């Protein structure tokens, strides 16, 4: 009897060890898991496999789901910046593959909103900005990345040119707070303040800075920021 139990246990272990057998994961679930596990090689391989047969939109939808889980893990303190950087790389690689396929098929993914972002004048930090960009793209935003050290006037010109729903300003240095304020002031002077929502982000922004700058929201957490942005576009669409 004991022997039988043991062998059943062994079979059980074999099944649970290979998760795709044990839980009978679909390809989609396996793909999301590979991204969340930050297994770059596996995620890219599965994406390639799926894009051979599936609608690229499905793959992009799964990227959004994976990004949500990653964001939650960061909020819970299970993931750190280094994990988000790796996740960002995977999301970007796969997203580029899927978009290329979409273009080849003559299709486009539905865009939920337009998001313009840049690191403000005098600051060149871009790790946080780049994480926000991959998270926002995964969520379905069209993102216009202005880059780093962006003067207020460039933000204004880009708003006129691209007509975004949301403007994001990123910065880590103390002086970035001043630059953000100058940028918001320039947007106001150009008469564009009512046309856009403004969110600021970075290691040193807080509610105090947000009020001083005149932004609509602030965040230190990319996925939290994307959640705020999603609520804005939802509100806008009514």
């Amino acid at each position: 009897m004991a022997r039988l139990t043991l062998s059943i246990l062994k079979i059980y272990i074999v099944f649970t060890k290979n998760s795709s057998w044990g839980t009978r994961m679909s390809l989609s679930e396996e793909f999301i898991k590979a991204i969340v596990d930050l297994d770059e090689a596996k995620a890219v391989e599965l994406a390639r496999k799926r894009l051979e047969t599936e609608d690229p939109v499905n793959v992009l939808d799964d990227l959004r789901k994976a990004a949500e889980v990653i964001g939650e893990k960061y909020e819970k303190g299970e993931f750190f910046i280094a994990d988000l950087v790796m996740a960002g790389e995977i999301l970007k690689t796969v997203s580029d593959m899927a978009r290329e396929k979409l273009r080849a098929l003559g299709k486009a993914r539905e865009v939920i909103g337009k998001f313009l972002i840049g690191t403000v004048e005098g600051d060149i930090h871009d790790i946080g900005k780049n994480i926000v960009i991959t998270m926002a793209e995964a969520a379905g935003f069209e993102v216009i990345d202005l880059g780093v050290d962006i003067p207020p006037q460039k933000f204004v010109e880009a708003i006129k040119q691209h007509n975004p729903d949301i403007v994001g300003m990123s910065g880590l240095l103390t002086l970035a707070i001043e630059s953000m304020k100058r940028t918001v002031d320039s947007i106001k002077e150009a008469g564009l303040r009512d046309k856009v929502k403004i969110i600021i982000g970075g290691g040193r922004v807080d509610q105090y800075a947000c009020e001083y700058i005149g932004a609509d929201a602030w965040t230190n957490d990319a996925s939290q920021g994307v959640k705020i942005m999603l609520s804005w576009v939802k509100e806008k669409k009514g």
Partner: protein
Amino acid sequence: MVPVKEPIDEWIERHEKEPDVVAKEKADRFLKAVELKAPDRVPVAGVGGDFLCTYTGITWHDLSYNLDKIPPAVSKFLHDFPSDWGIVFAPMMLEGFIFALAFADFPDFANLIRFLTGPVHDILKDKWSQWPGREIPETYHPQFRGGEFMNPDEYKKLIENPVEFVHNTILPRACPGLGKPGSSQWNGAWIRVGITLQRILEFLISMGGITAKAGVPSFPMTNAYTPADVIGDFLRHPTGAMLDMRRYPDDFKAACEALIDPILKISTSVPPIPPATFFFIPLHLNEMLSPKMYNEFYWPYLKKVITSLVDKGYKGFIFFEGDHSPHVDTILELPKGWGIAWFERPKNFLKVWEKLKGHTTVMGGVSPALIAGGTPEKIEEYIKDLLNQIKPEGGFILSLGVNELPKDTPPANVRAYINAVLKYGIY
């Protein structure tokens, strides 16, 4: 109405009347805290940043390039906002440890070339930094840009001979002012750097004399670095370093191991002189790593640097950038009394203190945002409450998380910060 004399006013007067006595008191206070004991009062660390510029009318450009303008501004600032500890770094403004690595075999100047200065940047035209009045406005703090100057497939060369690789391969890529190694431009540029460093050294010695006369003690200092931060700050950019840890873990670890010896060579070029010679290390990637990655790629090599130097008789002085809370327990692996841990913004400062008290000298506790945006009353209340929870245990130095205050900080708030420690810091 006669203005009320606050403890800070009395302290300023004592600085004027008996600077030698005040300096000795400060040195004793600081050393007691380093020995984990309770001094007469909690030592308070000084402030600086853009606030120093607005208060004294000096610009970052002056602090970087116009050496003759530095002493009057710094003297005024130190007079009006006295503290127990503060470093006047100007004109040594930015990280330049990579240059010390390139010359790790030259103990006579490896430590001097360790910080980047504006005048040396003008010669090297390095891409790691941007300077006020050069690439950025005169009123901006010099900026460290970093960058990617090494490909992942070059780890092997870095591991084989870090000093040679940095000198022969990285410097020519990152410093267009140098030209090709061995060329006339290369040799001429280094001669110019030597002449410039001599001028800066003379300035620092004379500045030390001026501050000593104003009641500011000084301790000999040397420098070290975390191997993983050498890779992130100067070779692969932090993003590249974080990706490499996952993509090329063995190469990354072997490179960290190979960097330890040259780092220690630089540190030990200044001998450990009693009562204390500190080695300063600012940490950069720490906050961004999960405990798993920190314990695999960062801490083992940093720990080796720290313990090697502590064994040789140095004391550590480490700036833990960002929120170091997830990794605080590892500090307990170091020998008791190893040195000072300065925390920028741990989620819960008191928790960190509770963990480390009696083992590590803890520095920090006050958010620059409170001093910049609070009121004198709020600042006093906060510091009173914090000190009540920390005392009577010794081994504590009250400081801002990072000693840089924004330009619009009200001077009354800075006075309130110092005053509160003088009032409530007595053991």
